[in-house]
């Protein structure tokens, strides 16, 4: 659970993308990690296309500031393991080797030295991944609502008709961000 004292009630302080809290090398490792978690393939765009790194970069400067040290530790551990086992940086690994290391990270077998400190990392990164993929684009991820389009979620709709709530009904709506809602909640009918 993360405190969010930096966001004033009723407002969003996330209109500008700040510079990354991570170094270039760390961002490269982070990119490889999230792409491994949710890769681009024949089914559609991956985590990088969908903007998960943009989402995290913005969050690291705001509500997720407290998670930056944990990410640093995990990314360093991935790089160390990649160097030891493959003689490369994690970002440069082929997908198969990358996935071997991600699997070890998930099982807590990546780094004997930092095992306990790294234990909470995977569930947190998984939560953040899904936020970047499937959260409202106003937070910097889900670019072009690609994450929503991939799974068929139409986003912030005013409401749904009885027909749309039937099983097997096709809900043919262009996805919409909550940023497109009228500020005063006065939209008055189901479109």
């Amino acid at each position, binding site marked *: 659970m993360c*405190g969010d004292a930096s966001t004033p009630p009723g407002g969003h302080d996330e209109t500008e993308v700040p510079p990354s809290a991570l170094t270039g090398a760390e961002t490269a490792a982070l990119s490889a990690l999230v792409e491994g978690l949710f890769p681009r393939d024949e089914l559609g765009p991956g985590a990088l296309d969908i903007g998960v790194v943009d989402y995290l970069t913005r969050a690291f400067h705001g509500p997720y500031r407290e998670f930056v040290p944990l990410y640093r530790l995990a990314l360093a551990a991935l790089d160390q393991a990649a160097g030891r086992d493959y003689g490369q940086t994690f970002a440069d690994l082929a997908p198969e080797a990358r996935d071997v290391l991600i699997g070890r990270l998930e099982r807590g077998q990546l780094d004997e030295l930092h095992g306990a400190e790294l234990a909470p990392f995977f569930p947190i990164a998984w939560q953040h991944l899904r936020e970047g993929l499937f959260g409202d684009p106003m937070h910097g991820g889900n670019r072009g609502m690609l994450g929503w389009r991939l799974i068929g979620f139409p986003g912030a709709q005013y409401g749904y008709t009885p027909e749309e709530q039937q099983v097997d009904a096709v809900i043919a709506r262009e996805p919409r961000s909550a940023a497109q809602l009228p500020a005063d*909640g006065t939209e008055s009918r189901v479109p």
Partner: protein
Amino acid sequence: MKVEREVEICLVGLGGTGGMAAAVLTAAGRNVVALEAGPPWSGREHLMDEISSTNARNVWGSAKFNHEIPTWRPHADGARQPTPHTQGLANGVGGSSLVYGAIAFRFHPDDFRVRSNTLERYGPGALPPGTGLADWPLSYDDLEPFYDWAEELVGVSGHAGNVRGQVRAGGNPFEGPRQRPYPLPPLRTSGLGRLFRDAALGAGYHPFPVPAAILSEPYAGRRACTYCSFCNRLACHVGAKGGTLDTVVPLAAATGRLDIRTGCRALRIVTDERGVASGIEYAGPDGVHFQPAGAVVLATYSYENIRLLLLSRTGRFPDGLGNNAGQVGRYYMARQHLPVFGVFDGRRLNGFTGPAAQGYTIDDLNADNFDHTGLGFVRGGRIAVVHQFSPIESTTIIPPDVPRWGRPYKAFLTRHYNSIAVLTVGAETLPYDANFLDLDPEVRDPLGRPVIRITFNTYENERRLLGFLQDRAVRLLEAMGAGRVWRASPHVEAMGVHDVGGARMGMDPRHSVVDSFGRLHEVPNVYVLGGATLPTHGGLNPTLTLQALALRTAAHIAGTAPQVVRERLRATGPSRGA
């Protein structure tokens, strides 16, 4: 320390129960100061934004709860464990009722005399070792008028199953007799609801629409639900959810007798040399204040109510206020939710539409609505199909053999996101001697005050009960047409939702903390509202029960007949008009 002008009643917390109490007290002519730790929400913040509202961020708890999350250990000689899965609570005017799921059940007549009924039907051997199962100090009939009142104030949509003893088709035949139907017809029955209803009927159960404090039609100047699906954990974009900010708090404010002080956190209840409360010491934005009051009403969440009592130590109450019998914190109970999941391959279930509370449920396996002979457990729970398949949370729902990352994960989501149904399985937890709340000896909040420590474990009765319910939920899902079905794994820790007990009500001061009005046995002018006062947990969502109890307490404190206050509130607020 700044000393404020004395007020008749100081209310701590203006949420789901505090809002109800404020409406009754002010309508009865009492002057009330309400101390609210959180901000004055408009109720239209962070609309349709899952990221802000999920547990990971929980903007609603920024002012307080996020910085004082209770710690947990499974038993008294066990080490502290990582923070349990906790549903973020909300601070601010309206409290968690602003963002709750708004399921609005009444408890059963049987819940109010659960100990006696269990002993009479099954004998003393049916009580598991270490349980403190107790009857309530009031009956369902005592509370029925207040249930009726609460349903009117918040606007509950549902289909009554038992009106004055007459069982009605399509309703819940197990519910206690009601003096009249719900104020509003039930929420729409979706295709998913129909699938559940038909499967449950086929299995011989009695399905009915989940009663919800969500308007199915315009009511009392408020707008109806649009079935947008951003509901549980979020504020409603049209104010159709019956949180107190959109219902009773405006009625109280309109009297001119409610002084709402936001950003003000109660620190302790001050008592005089006679052991009578003289007021509340609180931290405001500009320092520490003392608010003298004729009576004090604690209306925070179960955790904070208990913490305030324990922190209000004096020479007369060395272990905390009202705790000279050592009962404060005891018999804490938390809901165990162990849903089952099913994939309906190739079908569009459209569960991402509609609020969570737009569901169908059965009560056949709850309370003592079925014969427990030979089952090895007592009590029950409910199984329901629900909506609000929100994409961040719902993409955690994957079968055990599908990895949670990589191409297989992506392939599963891409193919099945709209084909997964969830049946929620929630069960009653018995009160145990071994499950309690106290102050953590090490972990403190930013004010330097100890946070609550939860000592809680799930025992054999609940394990068997949950397994029994999950087995039946699996069969229902299969009858609904699910191909692949799996179940949530058992867990032992508290969920941080439906947390009750700790200041339970009872007749006997040696074994309870408050009387049926929530008044401390040991202090004549301090009242406790909310889940902390429940002697038992019930198998259903507790909010409506807590609100009915709050109305009853407030009318008692005001010394005004409930019907008189109700008529006054009707003159300005919601009325059925019939």
